[in-house]
């Protein structure tokens, strides 16, 4: 979807977002919009501030300033638990599967915050492997299964904005394809998704728009339709 065709007010509007890890100032004024039902990616080199941007939106940074408007409400100043209750959920980069919990417990851990989440049956239809492994320890799953579990557990909650941090990192191509199909399906169901991704091909196959993040700022916006034309520029940004 080209940028001009987006409807009036975005579901998520980030303006001049600054964020800190302890003393170190990582985000220097990130701004971007995501409309309802869109999939956008944050692209950029390692250390550009993509993960930190997701953490800042989710309220998981100790210090952040600027503005994050979600569904018309300001999130700056709210704790992560309040932000989660408004319908935002995250799949962190390290996946965050709990070792002391079984797969079943991991799956059922996040409370349902809104109606309209996936049922267990829908989740098992999406990720049949998980049904077989319910009694296993969470971290005994393969990397791909852990990623599926990390996605599955937030689908139950009814969150409508999903923040996915490098869901394909370190996974085999066949698993990457399965996760790609899952994200497409979620998009089809009306979920809004912000995807941080190093796998550029993967991102291009799914996203409506790409935001290029560099040194803690969004430095460019590339609609997916214009991607081929902007390849040279993008390669320069990403340093590949």
């Amino acid at each position, binding site marked *: 979807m080209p940028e001009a065709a987006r409807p009036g007010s975005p579901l998520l509007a980030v303006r001049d977002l600054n964020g800190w890890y302890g003393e170190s100032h990582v985000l220097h004024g990130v701004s971007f919009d995501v409309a309802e039902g869109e999939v956008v990616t944050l692209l950029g080199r390692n250390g550009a501030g993509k993960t930190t941007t997701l953490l800042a939106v989710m309220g998981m940074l100790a210090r952040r300033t600027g503005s994050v408007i979600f569904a018309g409400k300001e999130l700056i100043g709210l704790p992560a638990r309040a932000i989660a209750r408004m319908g935002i959920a995250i799949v962190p980069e390290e996946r965050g599967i709990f070792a002391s919990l079984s797969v079943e417990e991991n799956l*059922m851990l996040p*409370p349902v915050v809104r109606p309209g989440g996936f049922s267990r049956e829908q989740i098992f239809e999406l990720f049949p492997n998980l049904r077989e492994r319910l009694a296993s320890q969470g971290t005994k799953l393969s990397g791909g299964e852990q990623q599926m579990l990390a996605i599955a557990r937030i689908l139950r909650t009814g969150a409508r904005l999903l923040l996915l941090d490098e869901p394909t990192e370190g996974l085999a191509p066949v698993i990457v394809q399965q996760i790609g199909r899952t994200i497409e399906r979620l998009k089809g169901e009306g979920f809004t998704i912000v995807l941080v991704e190093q796998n550029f091909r993967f991102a291009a196959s799914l996203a409506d728009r790409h935001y290029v993040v560099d040194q803690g700022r969004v430095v460019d916006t590339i609609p997916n339709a214009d991607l081929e034309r902007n390849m040279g520029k993008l390669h320069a940004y990403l340093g590949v």
Partner: protein
Amino acid sequence: MFELLGIPPQALFGQLLLGLINGSFYALLSLGLAVIFGLLNIINFAHGALYMMGAFVAWMLLNYLGIGYWPALILAPLAVGIFGMVIERLMIARLYHLDHLYGLLLTFGLALIIQGLFRNEYGISGLPYQIPTQLAGGQNLGFMFLPNYRAWVVVASLLVCFGTWFMIEKTRLGALLRAATENPALVGAFGINVPRLITLTYGFGVALAAFAGVLAAPIYSVNPNMGADLIIVVFAVVVIGGMGSILGSIVTGFGLGLVEGLTRVFYPEGSAVVIFVIMAIVLLVKPAGLFGRAA
């Protein structure tokens, strides 16, 4: 066979029973410490003082309000648990961003203050607390005499310990607790109020100590130093079992009570130090503790 070893069975079983009783208190107290350490990452040095408070609250309920043992078994842990939650909110919560050592120092200071206040008010000679009439007397088992109250202490401790284990390992609340122990930031990002969970956990761990205190009141005299004497051994139990391990603290608590009892039979001179000797050996061979996961 016992006569062959020169030990009369009465002495052996008597000491084993005493070991089980001590083990009951070790288990309850180290379990509370483990629960608190798991989620709060602080070593709760006030644990002994709060155990003592449990016994004193039971004594006060009886002597000031005429409320007996059975209600006290619920009310004293509740009161001390609430006291603990207030302490956690007002003081301990301010230290979570600092090194563990600060939590330890704070709770150590609190223990000294609490003990000092009670010593000031009630002296150190100890106050009597009667065994409830329902549990007076005992059973002659043939090979030994089993006082009813002591049997009750072992049963009550086992029930509470395994009830706690079940809650933590098998229920949804327990899953939240375990998850928050591993990654509190992510659990918060799922919409859970982690600070409240931490406060309730501290209150629960402290209530376990107070429950042990009420159980102890009719056996030992109610004394401001009763916790300080016990807590050093309990810390050794926690180190041997492995910091933060739930099942480990229960099994180690009862096990070391028995070991202590056996030592009193076979080598009485060593009974006071046997737990510390085991602690030294465990620290050398398996520093994370018998049930601990290496960090």
